[in-house]
C-alpha cells in the first residue's frame, strides 16, 4: 500500500467522496486548476471538471453562504477557506445559518456541508496565516468541529464529515500536512465523528490534545518514558460533540491530566475539557489539571513565532509537574 501524508490523505478523501457521490462539490479560492495553495484539491478539477470544482471570487462570506444554499438543494459542498485567518468572515453564516437551518425549519431544510481550512502555526507564514480559532466554532450549537492529527485520521474523518447530514467545520493542521506518512486504505470506512482516539495507552498521566500538537504530545510521552512515566495520549479529533467518556475514563485511571493546544490559553477549547473533568472526575484527580497552550498574545510574526508555539518541551514540563503529585 502506498504511503501518504496528511495533505495527500485530504486529497484522497475528497477524491473518493467525489467519485462515490456525485452530490459532492468542491469550492473555494484557487481550489480549481491551481489545486489549492497547499495542493489539497490537486487534480480534482482535472478529474471531475468545472461542474464539480469551482474557483470562487475572493469572498469568504459567500463561499460559506453559497455552500449553505447548495446544501439545502441536496448537494454536499466542501468549501475551502484558504487559511483559518480568513474564516472569520464566515462565522456569521456558520452560526446564524448553517448551524440552524435544520432546527429553524424543524428538519425541512438541512445543511450537509463541510467548511475546510488549514489552521495552526509553525510554518513561518505571514500574519493571519497561523490561526487556531477552533474554540470559537466549538461553542456554536448545531455544528461539528473535527481536527485530524494523522493521515489515516484525516482520511477517515473527512470521509465522515462529507457524508454527515449536518454542517462540519474541518480544520487541518497545516504544520503536519507533510510531516509524516501513513498507509491509507482507500477502501476503509469513515471514522466516527463522536469519538476521541487513544493513540498511546498509558498508566500515569493523560495528555489530551488535537491537531499538530498531537505529534508534540507523542514526543513528550517518548521523552518522559525514560523517566518511567507512562503517558496516555488522547487525540480529541472531534471537538464537538466531545467524547467526554473516553477522556473521563482515562483520567479516572491515571489521575492526572495535561491538555495541550496551540490556540491561546484563555477560553481555548482546553478549558472545556478541564471543566468537564473538574466536574465529573474531580475526586479521581491526584494533581491539578495543567494546560499547555499558546500565550494570550497575538501570534508573533515568524521571527519570534517559535516563542509562541507550545512544543514537546512544554508538555514534558507539565507532565513532570503533575507527576510531582502522588
Amino acid at each position, binding site marked *: 500500500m502506498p504511503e501518504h501524508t496528511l495533505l495527500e490523505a485530504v486529497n484522497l478523501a475528497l477524491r473518493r467522496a467525489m467519485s462515490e457521490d456525485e452530490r459532492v462539490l468542491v469550492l473555494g479560492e484557487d481550489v480549481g486548476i491551481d489545486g489549492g495553495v497547499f495542493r489539497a484539491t490537486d487534480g480534482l478539477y482535472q478529474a471531475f471538471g468545472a461542474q464539480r470544482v469551482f474557483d470562487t471570487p475572493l*469572498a469568504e462570506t459567500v463561499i460559506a453562504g*453559497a455552500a449553505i444554499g447548495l446544501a439545502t438543494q441536496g448537494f454536499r459542498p466542501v468549501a475551502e477557506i484558504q487559511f483559518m485567518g480568513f474564516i472569520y468572515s464566515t462565522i456569521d453564516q456558520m452560526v446564524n445559518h448553517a448551524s440552524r437551518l435544520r432546527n429553524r*425549519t424543524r428538519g425541512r431544510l438541512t445543511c450537509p456541508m463541510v467548511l475546510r481550512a488549514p489552521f495552526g502555526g509553525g510554518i513561518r507564514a505571514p500574519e493571519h496565516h497561523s490561526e487556531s480559532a477552533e474554540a470559537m466554532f466549538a461553542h456554536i450549537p448545531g455544528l461539528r468541529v473535527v481536527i485530524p492529527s494523522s493521515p489515516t485520521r484525516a482520511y477517515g474523518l473527512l470521509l465522515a464529515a462529507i457524508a454527515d*447530514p449536518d454542517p462540519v467545520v474541518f480544520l487541518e493542521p497545516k504544520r503536519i500536512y507533510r510531516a509524516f506518512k501513513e498507509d491509507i486504505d482507500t477502501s476503509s470506512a469513515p471514522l466516527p465523528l463522536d469519538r476521541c482516539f487513544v493513540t498511546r495507552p498509558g498508566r500515569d498521566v493523560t495528555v489530551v490534545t488535537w491537531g499538530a500538537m498531537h505529534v508534540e504530545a507523542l514526543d513528550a510521552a517518548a521523552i518522559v518514558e525514560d523517566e518511567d512515566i507512562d503517558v496516555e495520549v488522547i487525540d480529541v479529533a472531534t471537538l464537538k460533540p466531545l467524547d467526554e467518556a473516553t477522556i473521563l475514563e482515562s483520567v479516572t485511571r491515571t489521575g492526572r491530566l495535561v491538555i495541550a493546544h496551540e490556540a491561546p490559553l484563555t477560553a481555548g477549547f482546553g478549558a472545556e475539557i478541564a471543566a468537564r473533568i473538574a466536574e465529573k472526575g474531580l475526586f479521581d484527580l491526584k494533581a491539578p489539571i495543567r494546560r499547555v497552550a499558546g500565550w494570550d498574545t497575538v501570534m508573533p510574526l515568524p521571527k519570534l513565532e517559535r516563542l509562541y508555539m507550545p512544543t514537546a518541551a512544554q508538555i514534558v514540563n507539565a507532565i513532570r509537574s503533575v507527576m510531582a503529585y502522588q
Partner: protein
Amino acid sequence: MGYWPPWSLQAFELTVTTYLGADGSLQQPLPAFASVEMRTGLYQDMVLTRTFDAKAIALQRTGRLGTYASCLGQEAVGVGIGRAMQPDDVLVPSFREHGAQLVRGVTLIELFAFWGGDERGSNFAVAQHDFPVSITVGGHAPHAAGVALAFKLRGQARASVCVYGDGATSKGDVYEAMNLAGVWRLPVVFVVNNNQWAISTPRKEQTAAIALSDKAVGAGFSGEQVDGNDVIAVHTVISSALDRARSGQGPHLVECLTYRLGDHTTADDARRYRDDGEVTRWWQQDPLARMRAHLTSEGVWSRDQEEALLKACAAKVEAAAEAYLAAPPAAPESIFDHLFARLPDALLDQRTAVMERAETDDA
C-alpha cells in the same frame, strides 16, 4: 466555473415601470397576462395579506404574538413576487414578504406560528423548498446564489428569488452574493423591497447610489426600478426577470419603490423619526386602493364583491388565528430534536434534563 460576457451599461437607464396611476388609471396598456381573473386574484391576495397583517398586530398588542414586522403598504411587492414565481422556483425572503409567502402556499397558521415564536411555523407544508424568514438582514442573499447554482448545475429551468430591504443593500453579504451570481450567471432574481426606511434610517442616508437598482452594475448584470405599489408592474417585471433567469440569461435586480406605512415592527415607534406628512402622502399611493379603483373603474369589481371579500378574508384569518392559539405547544425536547439528523450521544443527557425541567416548571 465559467464567466459570461457582461451586459452593457446601457441597460441601466432609470425608468420606473408603472401600469396603474395612484388613482388607478391606466398609464400604459396592460400586459398580456393581466386578465380580469388575474387582476382580481392579485387584489384578493393583497386584501388577504392586509387582513392577516392587521390581525397579527392586534394579536401582538394583546400579548398573543411576538414582535411582528408589518407589511402595510407593501402588499403589492409581496403578492407580485409570489404570483410571478413558478411553484418549483425557490423564495428566499426577508421578514416583510408575508404576501409572497401566502401566495406561495405558506399557511396563515404557519405565519402566525412563526411570528408567535414557534419554529414549527417555518416547516411549510406546501412551500417545501422555500426558505424561512431571514431575520439577519442580508445574510440570506448568499443562500439564494447557492440555490440558483444548484439549479444551474442540474440544468433545471428554475430560479431563486431573493428579497431584501433598502437597508440590506448596504451589507457586504448582499454584494458578495450578487457578484457571485453575476460572474457565474446564476438564475436568481434579486428584489429590493425599498420601503424608504431601514428602521429610522432613510433611503438617502443608506447609500449615495442614484437608484438601488444600480447596485447591479458592480456585479455585472442589469437592474431596473418598478413601482412597488403597482402589483401589475411588480408582477410583470419580476416575471420577465424570472423567465430570463430560467432560460440561462443570468441574474437581474429589481428595485420595488414602495413605502412602509407602519412602524418598523411592533417594537418600534416611527413617529420618533419621521413626519406624519410623509406617511399621509404615501397613503395616496396605497396599492390596494389603487387596484380597487382600477377594477371598479373597469367595471369588474363591485361593492358587493368587496364586502364579500373582506368578510371571507376576515373569516379565514380569524379561523387561522384561533387554530394558532389553540395549537398545543411543541414538546420541550423538540429544542434538541432538530439540531442534528441524529442527536449526538453527547447531548442525550441535556435532552433528558430539559424534559425534566419542563415537568418541574409545570408542576
